[in-house]
């Protein structure tokens, strides 16, 4: 078998594998975003928002499309944020329509717009959560990451947290990796 033929065989095999793996891809995503939703729920409890935001609905805004919406909606149906605030999930497609939110979730597909998002949410008391690794260093308050052994963790930029007029309870801070 020549090298060219070997590479061809390998490519065909990998293509078939990718097709096979696609069958169950949805399940993988479900689990990943289920895990994220568990963290986000704890953020609603252990992050301290400005007093004027501790009443009324607790708004979680998702910018763009993400499977996390489905999980957050499940969470909103089951649980309450803070000290009993109803959780409302809002999905927006443009930055012009950003509502006043407690949490702004940025999916990977929107990571490049982080600078614009930061500009539009200055001192707005919004917890910007990204899912792409390294974004907390670039200006998001929190980004999710996975460890070697596939545990879901988060990086947190405390300076950015303070800029957003937010505070964090030490027991939650202990779980995160501080950056920035």
């Amino acid at each position, binding site marked *: *078998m*020549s*090298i060219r033929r*070997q*590479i061809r*065989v*390998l490519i065909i*095999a*990998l293509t078939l*594998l*990718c097709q*096979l*793996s696609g*069958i*169950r*891809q949805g*399940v*993988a*995503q*479900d*689990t*990943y975003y*289920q*895990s994220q939703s*568990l*963290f986000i*729920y*704890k953020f609603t409890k*252990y992050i301290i928002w400005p007093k004027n935001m501790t009443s009324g609905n607790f708004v979680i805004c998702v910018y763009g499309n993400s499977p996390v919406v489905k999980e957050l909606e*499940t*969470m909103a149906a*089951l*649980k309450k944020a803070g000290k009993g605030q109803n959780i409302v999930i809002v999905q927006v497609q443009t930055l012009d329509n950003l509502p006043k939110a407690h949490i702004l979730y940025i999916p990977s597909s929107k990571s490049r717009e982080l600078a614009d998002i930061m500009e539009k949410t200055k001192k707005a008391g919004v917890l910007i959560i990204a899912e*792409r*690794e*390294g*974004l907390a260093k670039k200006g998001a308050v929190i980004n*999710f990451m*996975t460890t*070697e*052994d*596939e*545990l*879901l963790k988060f990086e947190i930029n405390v300076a950015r947290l303070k800029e957003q007029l937010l505070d964090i309870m030490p*027991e*939650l801070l*202990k*779980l995160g*990796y501080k*950056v920035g």
Partner: protein
Amino acid sequence: MKRLLLLLIVLLPGLLMHGQEKDTTQGKEFRYLFGFAKNKDKYAVINNPSDSIGRNDTVRLSAFYDMSLEQLDSIKALGIAPELERFINRLISVSAAKPLTQRTSPNIITLITEDEIRKSGARDLIDVLRLVPGFHFAQDLNGNVGIGLRGNWATEGKMLVMVDGMEINEYYTAHLYFGNHLPVDLIKRIEIIRGPGSAIYGGFAEFGVINIITRGADENQLEFGGGAGMMTKEYAGNQSWMHLGKTWKNFSLSLSSCNSTSQRSDQKIYSFYDAAASSSGAGVGDYVSVAGKSAIESTWSQLNLKWKNLTFSSLSDLYRTTDITQMNANRDHKVKYGFSGGYTELKYELKGGSKFTLTPKVNLGLQTPWEEGTPYAIAQNEHGTDSVNIVLLRLKESLTATYDFDHRTSILFGAEHYTDFTNIRDTVGQAYFTSDPKYQYAAAGIFGQALFKLPAFHLVLGARTELSSEFKPAIVPRIAITKKWNRYHFKVLLSQAFRAPTIGNLEQAFDGNYSVVYDTAGQAIGISSVGRNLEPERTFVFEAEFGVMLKNNMYLTANFFDFTSKDPIVYYYYQDNFLERTFGYGSGVYVYQNFPMSGTTGLELDYRIKGNWGYCNLNYSYYSVKNNPRIPVYSVNTFDFSAENQTEINPKQLLAFPSHKLSVSTFFDVSDRLSISFTGNYWSKTYGYDVMFLGDGYDDNGNFIPAAYHVSGRLVRYRPVFLANLYFTLRDLPIKNMNIGFGVHDIFNDSPVFIQPFFGLKAPLPGPSREVSLKLSYKIPLTKKK
């Protein structure tokens, strides 16, 4: 029947995939958030965040949201079955000297667990390692069996073998032999690099690394066991072993031992008569059954003590094989080879906070490799009138420092220095050179590595340099990019590796120039090489791997590799007309020589499915040399003592190594007490040399040669082999804590032979025939259940 079974193996993954479709309810998948939930006490509380959640219950999501922060800290990012998760996310240190998972380790990795070893009923490491993609066993000299991978013969010090981090390759020529060697029942896991490891481990890790981690103190139990087997014609052997592991607050103790005797085979071999028998008219050799005459004896003992951060390890490995490739006039195989080693290590791990670790280590190894036990009665063997006795002491000091800048960046630096002291008592004639019998050799290595866990990918940069007074410095860098995303991962690995010449290599180094040494009576007794002109062999390796989790319990990887070795150090039998005239027909010397270039290219696929019902591992490996540089000594050429007269028959593969190999390892829990394991290997046709009988004839000078002495060699194509093994395990029977295992190895009695992978005239070495084996073990817990 064989074909049916082979077909079943190929279809098995598909059948299992189909069978797993039912395991897709949301409730069952949500449990995958907690990969360790089933067995680890630490996470037991997570398994049940509220009373409503059990492992197989329908999950009520609200209960999960109420978990504590401590529980949240153990949440999984990936939804995979706990059984598979425990396997692929097990932290492995062999690749980067830093705990990483298989998916991010900067090498192509195979992990073999204790569970897989014991459930398969493996008799020895050959049974275990045959299941690894690309691994194959072949015949070295004197009836010994060595290892190769990806088409490359690696037993000549190109595969590093470590036990708990201690090197056990023999220091003289760096060989390591298999077959009833290293007790499999005392192994906790085996971490294997199926590629170069020189950037960290140095000159014996050119093609691969096998790190055997033995059972430790944390088992807190005393276990002992034994086993026996019966081949079709002869008793196969027996073994007995024990392991004690106990931990206290700051102290732990692990003590183990194993004693075993087995037979290499019960089949026939073409064995050569020793010089005495041959000169008295017996001829060159004859076919003889080795049933009951091919003993391999092994005694193993190990002691590990740990007090806080101070570790003391000691192991003794006494290994003795019978050379069934030669015999005396009574057709007995009296020559035995001993490879004994004692290894001691003292290590201290000094921690400076959570980021810095400094590990000084001192190792002392004492070996007597190639100890030839030749009774005086047949002293006139191929090695002359005396036996070989090499005593070698290695003192090695090393220092390794690691520093973690943050959770994304870490560096590692290390330096090691070793000195070998040798005493060689060897007055041999043709096989060894007559040189200075005492020799001291020192070398030093410096290595470094930086690991960057960048958001986009992981980057590993590393290099090692080896310095010695005997050869030019060898510098080997490596760069690795790994990336895992959700269910996928890929690796791109570029590495250089090297094989450092050892004392034994330098002693027998050969550059084509030699002089004959005569005794006082003017009798030629050997040859002396003009210079130790042997340089390190260097290999450049490109590897790429793609992996995917096909389903929650299925994992598949595919990799491509390309090896190119420059100045390969090759051990082969050198002959020329002058040597034949001086020492007789067929005379020559085994030498080490740098050849121009060699290499292999290929791919490997590894599929695993794991569940609470059992597991199935299936892998395929392929290599080719068609587009790689080749050297005659490894090539599939017609038999001729002169390389110029050889003709290449198959330009795609090399001697002894099959192009295609398929391995399967399955295990099913039939009930709580009974489980069944099936393991199998299929490999395609192989090539090797065998003897050829020419009948009465004449030599080049017109002298008559009777048929008994008129023997030459021929190239033989060996048919594909299918090895199938079935093994049953009964747990807690007939009493609690007692396990009984029994099975059949090589069900179809294919009795594969070990072929010599380099040019030479050794007939194929027979392996064991179909064997029925029985194993027993009993454990006594040393801690009370809480």
